[in-house]
């Protein structure tokens, strides 16, 4: 099966974020970057599908500055076969602009399956995959937690409130991958890292669509104020209840 996986390079979520000088971006200082978690699971899902069915090819695609190549190399080290870097000065917030660039690349690729992560863990918009499906006129299933392919038919499961729904669709199709489809993305072995250095990586300018949505301001959440000790033992209970009712307004 020919599978494409679109992946995004994002800041490590464990970092302590600071707002950049323009007030509308995250400062780069002390931040480490890696593949978005959902995208990692999508790469893992693609590799597992091809391992199960034998043969096939996994192409990973990422849009962004040159540093995106580092993330693509990681996917190659995990086992993807080739990589395409769609070069852009920065990753715009507007998912549709990105979707147009990705669709332009995917259009003539002859892919049986296109995978995305359900969301990018930094922007958490979760729209780009669906937009690409629309542009390519492909069936789209979002937030897939189980994926099977048999011949030219795909079967996907989605976790919905209180249950599971199973969907079937013809290939080629586009799926966005949710947590739970794979238990863990594989860790690239040194052998994989060495092999990745020799795998093909194509870099070309991204054909971004018009950008119509921009971030105008970013703010950190307000700092949590320190806790307060109301008193000790049973004597403090009435005061605590009063405060929870009047100040915290949770009762």
């Amino acid at each position, binding site marked *: 099966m020919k599978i494409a996986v679109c992946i995004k390079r994002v800041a490590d979520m464990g970092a302590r974020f600071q707002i950049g000088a323009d007030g509308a971006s995250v400062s780069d200082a002390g931040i480490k970057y890696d593949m978005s978690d959902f995208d990692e699971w999508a790469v893992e899902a693609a590799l597992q599908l091809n391992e199960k069915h034998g043969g096939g090819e996994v192409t990973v695609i990422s849009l962004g500055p040159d540093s995106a190549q580092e993330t693509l190399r990681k996917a190659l080290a995990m086992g993807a076969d080739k990589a395409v870097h769609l070069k852009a000065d920065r990753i715009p917030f507007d998912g549709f602009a990105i979707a147009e660039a990705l669709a332009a690349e995917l259009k003539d690729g002859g892919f049986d399956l296109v995978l995305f992560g359900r969301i990018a863990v930094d922007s958490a918009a979760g729209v780009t995959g669906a937009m690409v499906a629309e542009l390519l006129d492909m069936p789209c299933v979002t937030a897939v937690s189980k994926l099977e392919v048999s011949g030219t038919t795909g079967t996907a499961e989605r976790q919905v409130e209180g249950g599971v729904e199973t969907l079937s669709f013809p290939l080629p199709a586009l799926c966005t991958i949710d947590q739970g489809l794979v238990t863990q993305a594989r860790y690239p072995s040194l*052998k994989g*890292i060495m092999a990745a250095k020799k795998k093909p990586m194509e870099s070309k300018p991204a054909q971004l669509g018009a950008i119509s949505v921009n971030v105008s301001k970013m703010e950190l959440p307000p700092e949590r104020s320190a806790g307060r000790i109301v008193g000790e033992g049973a004597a403090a209970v009435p005061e605590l209840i009063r405060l929870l009712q009047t100040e915290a307004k949770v009762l």
Partner: protein
Amino acid sequence: MSGQNFAFLLVLVAALGFFSYNIQRLVSYLKLGLPENRLDHPERRTWNLITIGFAQTRILRERGAGLSHASVFWGFLVITAGTAEILLHGVWPGFSYEHLLPRPLWQLFMLSQEIFAVIVLVAVSWLLWRRIVSPPKRLQGKEIHNTEAIIILFVIASLMLTLYTTGAFEYAANPAMRAAQYGWFRPISSLLGAALSGAPEGAMHAAYTVSFWSHALLVLGFLNFLPYSKHLHVVSSLINVWFSNTSGPGQVGVMKPMDLEAEVEQFGALDVDHLSWKNLLDGYSCTECGRCTAACPANITGKPLSPRKIVVDTRRRLMEKAPLMAGELDVEGSATLLMEAPGASDAFGNRLLDNYITEDELWACTSCRACVTECPVSIDQLDIIYELRRGLVLNEGRFPEEVQPTFESLEKNASPWAFSPADRARWSEGLNIPTYAEAFAEGKRPDILFWVGCMGSFDDRAKKITVAFARILQAADIDFAILGQEETCHGDPARRLGNEYLYQMLAKGTIETLDRYEVKTIVTFCPHCFHQMGNEFPQLGGNYEVIHHSTYIERLLNANMIPLTTEHGKHLTMTYHDSCYLGRYNDVYDSPRESLKRALPILTLVEPERTKDRGLCCGAGGGRMFVDEKVGKRINVERTEELIATGADVIAVACPFCMTMMTDGVAKLESAVTVLDISEVVAGQLAPVRSRELVAGD
């Protein structure tokens, strides 16, 4: 030459020829292994041969069995000289040492043969009794070739007995030679011979011939049985001791350097031909005595690891694979397959990893070096485990799933735990401790780098050790600084877990930082940091003087640089738990004990049953800190029970990993015993002028 002598010559040539064929075959198998230079420091190697080999120091660590083995071994050395004479005598009847040596010397030689034969007989009888009647635990189980051992012991006993009978029959058959050839210097043969001297001389001649041939055939049979049995160690163990690095030369416990840029088919080892020839020689030398397995904390607590099995499996796999390779090995030892050999493709599809040694065995190891320390023939079980772990991780990306967050955090945060690097020096807030960056900005060059380590930086319990040690340094007016946020993990956990790639990335980064700040002397309270930076960094070009805090505190106390209070409080009984990376890896046993005694002269120090180089691991070494302990009894509980049983009020440790394991053990056993780092005990005794709060007390 008589017909009989000619027949003997034929037998002798055939036996020696077959033995030499087998030895050459075994040596050619060694060439399947990777090259490794083991010819350095011949003086150190020869010293090991004399002490561990000839003086049997390691085997004597176990009194009873050790003394028996040593008796057989020394007897073997003495009696082999006599055996050579007997074999030559068979071909050339006129040959005797009698003609070569002055008579008193010859008499002494004859006496030595008879005395050692008695000693060997006594030892062998005891060993047989032990094998058959009351085998210790390490000699039970299906891995053990017990029948083989029993046969060998009987053969040795028969060799000794025929030595006497041959002499006795010769005495009885030849009255003429009695005066010159027999007497006080052959007491047992002479006595036995005298008892037989009434018998017909013809019968005695015949009996002599039978006895002589029996002895000679037993010797030659024994010789040719060796290459097919675990008794190959008779041939290989002395050689193995000479080539071994487990007792030096070089720093012990250092992992093999690895060139990640090398064009190789695999990294680390997946099969025997990815191990070094020395690892394979270890396989030949294993006697299956099981001292390693009996000392293994994983094995003791019911995990699937047995270091003996690792070595025996290496030999078994070599014996399976090597015959499949073409006889013509080139210099590098690479070989062509003889795939047409029957069963070859099946056997070739096997490999050491998975088919012989499973992943679970490899991950159970705490790298405590107890196995290596116990081995009487200097086998390095740990080296094989490390190479296979590297094989698993670097080629196949296989490791326990809970290790993945550790690797990822090391990559992203340069710490095995997902803490922000920005929080690394939080513990130092308000303590007035300069960082190197601050010191350099003021144009200062601190004398000492206090390397805090990841545990000391982020773990709440270990941070108290950090503060305690910093206070000692301040009280002693030491010119020191920390790296603060610039400190990064040196990668040792990744290395121990087989991830050499990640290790080298982190280690090189750390070395860069250290060199940028012109660091020369490092003090740390983590034995893992101490071992890694002091002993393994030189492989990557990082050369520093690294001192463990136990040694450093002892030095400061000896120099009276630490102002101590004279108030000693209530009398305490303490027991000290040895850290593997401090003790067995670096031979530091006394400094922590001395530091405790000097800081608190009224304390009573008691030792647990397993202590110093026999100490039991806490269970956290070798990356086990990051692997769930799912099988068997918890190692830390086993160890804590033993420490509590000493009746101590305080368990003293000198390692933050041991601290975590012992604290957990005490909690699990609901004991009231306190666990303290030695620096906390010392900081608790600082003179009040300098120390505002007593750290150890809280």
